């Protein structure tokens, strides 16, 4: 071969691959980033939300300061729709500096985002999502699966997700059922076995919001199905009416009309606050004098304080009980109490879960310090699942699900709501820590 050809060929051989490689730049290459830092992403309910308050307070603790040289806590507002949550999750999944995620602020957005975090094995601590659907993989576009089948094939749990609150089914449903029985005084009738006496006069209506846009159906469907299929002989015969509503297609006016027609003694509202407010406003506008005739049970995700001002008796079921935080003496708990005071809040709310999530991750990061990455975080969370220490309580999270936790039922107490009953494993007891619960039997 002539020398000219050889040199030409040699040039081409060298030129092509080398020129190609020169333009190649790996995304967020840690070796090229100046002062690299991991990120813990916290997706809270927005500015001033309890999640943000808890996270900001957690950043002031010694546990977090110990890792702050190489870990940042980034607080972002959780999107309100599932589609936006998916977009956010896709962005985070592409960011190699994300070490873990705390969030999202609702079951619907958590469920929508989790598959994308799983693709990048990003550990997720869930301080707010309680829907049983949130932990399991299934096709979003298909019908929602039966909750009873969730722990079985083909529904696989996301191995990177850890829920800090007990699942709605059975825990929240147990609390709703127990509260309903207590409010209606079913217990007394159960003792005398005179259920037929109250059946005619006492009607329970369940109204279930199933809007897909904001993931309400992910949150409510498991609870709605469980309540509808309930076979408690002292509860299910009283379920007189069941109604579903999609806020994007249905109309609240029709639901309110049905409520007037059924005349239920107790209405169980399952959905998000937008729906509850719309319905209560409609009821009040059309029959302001009758608001006192209704009693409502709402899960805490459906409740915002102004709903208590509509003239009806409102009961709220919640996995949060402030007694646990108020009696707690740890330094971290004091930091949270200071933050609550600074925020001019009268008493703690559920900011403790975001606060604890940061503390748990800070402890795990410290344990993984020698070789810190997502895999170590997930493995350490799994290994220590039985005792993940928060500020005031230890979380037992087995197979991603919170164990040994209770639900509180808040009842009207003066002008506000206060814990009244505590429901654990189907057992109901009075919460003796609050002045109104002194009347509790």
């Amino acid at each position, binding site marked *: 071969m002539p020398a000219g050809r050889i040199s030409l*060929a040699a040039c081409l051989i060298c030129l092509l691959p080398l020129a190609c490689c020169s*333009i190649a730049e*790996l995304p967020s290459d840690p070796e090229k980033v100046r002062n690299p830092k991991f990120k813990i992403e916290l997706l809270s309910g927005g500015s001033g939300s309890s999640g943000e308050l808890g996270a900001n307070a957690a950043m002031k603790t010694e546990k977090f300061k110990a890792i702050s040289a190489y870990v940042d806590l980034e607080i972002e507002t959780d999107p309100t729709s599932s589609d936006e949550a998916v977009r956010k999750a896709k962005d985070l999944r592409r960011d190699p500096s994300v070490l873990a995620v705390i969030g999202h602020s609702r079951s619907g957005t958590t469920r929508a985002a989790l598959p994308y975090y799983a693709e*990048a094995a990003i550990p997720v601590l869930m301080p707010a999502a309680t829907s049983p659907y949130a932990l399991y993989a299934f096709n979003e576009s298909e019908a929602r699966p039966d909750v009873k089948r969730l722990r079985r094939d083909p529904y696989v749990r996301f191995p990177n997700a850890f829920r800090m609150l007990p699942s709605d089914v059975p825990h929240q449903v147990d609390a709703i059922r127990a509260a309903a029985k207590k409010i209606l005084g079913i217990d007394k009738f159960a003792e005398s076995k005179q259920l037929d006496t109250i059946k005619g006069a006492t009607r329970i209506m369940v109204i279930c919001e199933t809007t897909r846009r904001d993931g309400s159906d992910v949150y409510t469907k498991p609870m709605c199905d469980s309540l509808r299929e309930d076979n408690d002989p002292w509860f299910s015969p009283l379920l007189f009416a069941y109604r579903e509503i999609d806020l994007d297609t249905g109309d609240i006016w029709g639901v309110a009309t049905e409520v007037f027609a059924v005349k239920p003694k107790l209405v169980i509202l399952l959905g998000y606050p937008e729906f509850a407010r719309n319905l209560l406003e409609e009821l009040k506008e059309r029959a302001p004098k009758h608001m006192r005739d209704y009693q409502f049970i709402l899960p805490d995700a459906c409740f915002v304080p102004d709903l208590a001002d509509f003239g009806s008796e409102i009961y709220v079921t919640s996995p949060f009980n402030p007694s646990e935080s108020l009696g707690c003496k740890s330094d971290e708990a004091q930091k949270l109490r200071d933050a609550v005071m600074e925020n001019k809040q009268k008493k703690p709310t559920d900011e403790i879960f975001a606060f604890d999530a940061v503390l748990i991750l800070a402890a795990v990061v410290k344990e993984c310090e020698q070789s810190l990455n*997502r895999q170590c975080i997930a493995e350490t969370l799994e290994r220590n699942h039985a005792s993940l220490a928060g500020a005031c309580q230890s979380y037992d999270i087995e197979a991603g699900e919170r164990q040994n936790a209770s639900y509180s039922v808040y009842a009207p107490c003066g002008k506000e709501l206060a814990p009244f009953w505590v429901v654990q494993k189907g057992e109901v007891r009075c919460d003796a820590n609050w002045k109104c619960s002194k009347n509790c039997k």
Partner: protein
Amino acid sequence: MPIGSVAKTVSEHWKGGIVSGLLVVDAVALSLCLLDSARFSSKGLSLKSALSVLQEPPVGKSVWLGLAVLVFFVLALPMAVALLSALLSPREHWPTYLGIRARGMLLSHLLLSGGISLFTVTAVTMQTLSGWTKDGEVWRYSFLSFWLSLVLLGQPAYVFYLSPIIRKFLVRAVAKPKAANVREIANDVTKEVLTEEGMDRAG
């Protein structure tokens, strides 16, 4: 040298490199890709996820890398094989299994090259999906693709040597547009960079 003549020379030279040895190189590259895939899966991540991320915008610069690898495999590699046969040992003296020419070999090579370049782009996503690891004071991707490391090996050589050669060559060629001997300019520039400037930069 007229362009038509150059093209013909290059084409003949390139065709001379389409032999079974080329498929052996493809196979070695592919096995490295498969090894990477297995290592990635062993970390609890899935290749399917990496492929699904590839389909999402923004695609990024990794596409150029994939394209470069494709061009390298399709154009440069056959030339390298032809060059080896000219410089080291004539193809007739190669082991039989390396020097076979058969129908369909070109198509197979093109397909394998396509697969390898696609894997290159996927490897970038795999590294990103794996996140970072901090080992003491060292920061790196949790998953490091062997194949991608090999592909990017040329980067320092380009930065230190080839880039200055090309730049100087272009500047001088423009400054002396009527220069008869382009090869002379290229030789001068190469000599300068490899003997002095390149050393300075590396040092």
